[in-house]
């Protein structure tokens, strides 16, 4: 049976080392852990923060959908996805994906697949807070995020 992923949406920051430790603690046949962390960028110091809005309920279910799809497609033993919301400053963490497997290909593919689908399917939106105090814009979706999913067809 495919691994059931752990999915969390939270305002608080996360401790990736502690999360990974908890995730793989009991399993000594995991040989590979691929991790992705998304950070808030300052865009050359022009941003003071990003504010992340989300759709509670649907955010979790969409994250679970793409994580479960990865666990069905590759032999993944453990999968964790955390996404934050609220005001996040440059350098701070926004998203964590951890995929653990016996071998590295499944771990890398699984983590990347989840990021690609999470970007376009999970209901989160980023608004910029500008360093100069001017009104911030909502971040535009990137076409490249839509096309990134094509590689998994």
């Amino acid at each position, binding site marked *: 049976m495919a691994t059931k992923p752990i999915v969390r949406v939270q305002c608080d920051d996360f401790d990736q080392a502690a999360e990974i430790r908890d995730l793989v603690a009991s399993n000594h046949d995991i040989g590979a852990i691929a991790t992705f962390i*998304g950070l808030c960028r300052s865009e050359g110091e022009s941003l003071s923060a990003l504010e*992340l*809005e*989300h*759709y509670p*309920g*649907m*955010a979790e*279910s969409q994250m679970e959908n793409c994580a479960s799809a990865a666990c069905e497609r590759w032999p993944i033993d453990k999968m964790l996805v955390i*996404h934050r919301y609220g005001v996040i400053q440059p350098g701070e963490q*926004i*998203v964590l994906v951890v995929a653990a497997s016996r071998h590295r290909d499944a771990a890398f593919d699984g983590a990347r697949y989840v*990021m690609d689908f*999470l*970007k*376009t*399917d*999970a*209901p*989160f*939106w*980023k*608004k910029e807070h500008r360093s100069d105090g001017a009104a911030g814009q*909502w*971040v*535009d*979706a990137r076409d490249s*995020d839509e096309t990134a999913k094509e590689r998994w067809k």
Partner: protein
Amino acid sequence: MAEDKVKILYFSWIRERVGLNDELVSMPDGVKTVAQLLVWLQGRNEQFAAAFEFPEIIRVALDQEHADHAQDLGKPSEIALFPPMTGG
């Protein structure tokens, strides 16, 4: 009656333009598809006209599942309207 109403949620700049987080709406007769809902919303008032000026870019979720514009609305208890997502 409340049973005939559907909860509509707005997110991101759509929420800002319409000036509402969510509302309970009586769906008019003749609004049977997602595309028809967007046309109707656009005609409600100036704020909605601004929010739904380009309906083709609006994403719609029916009971928290992504829906195509051509899809029938069915009888959802919750409809969400939002721009393309920018998480991750």
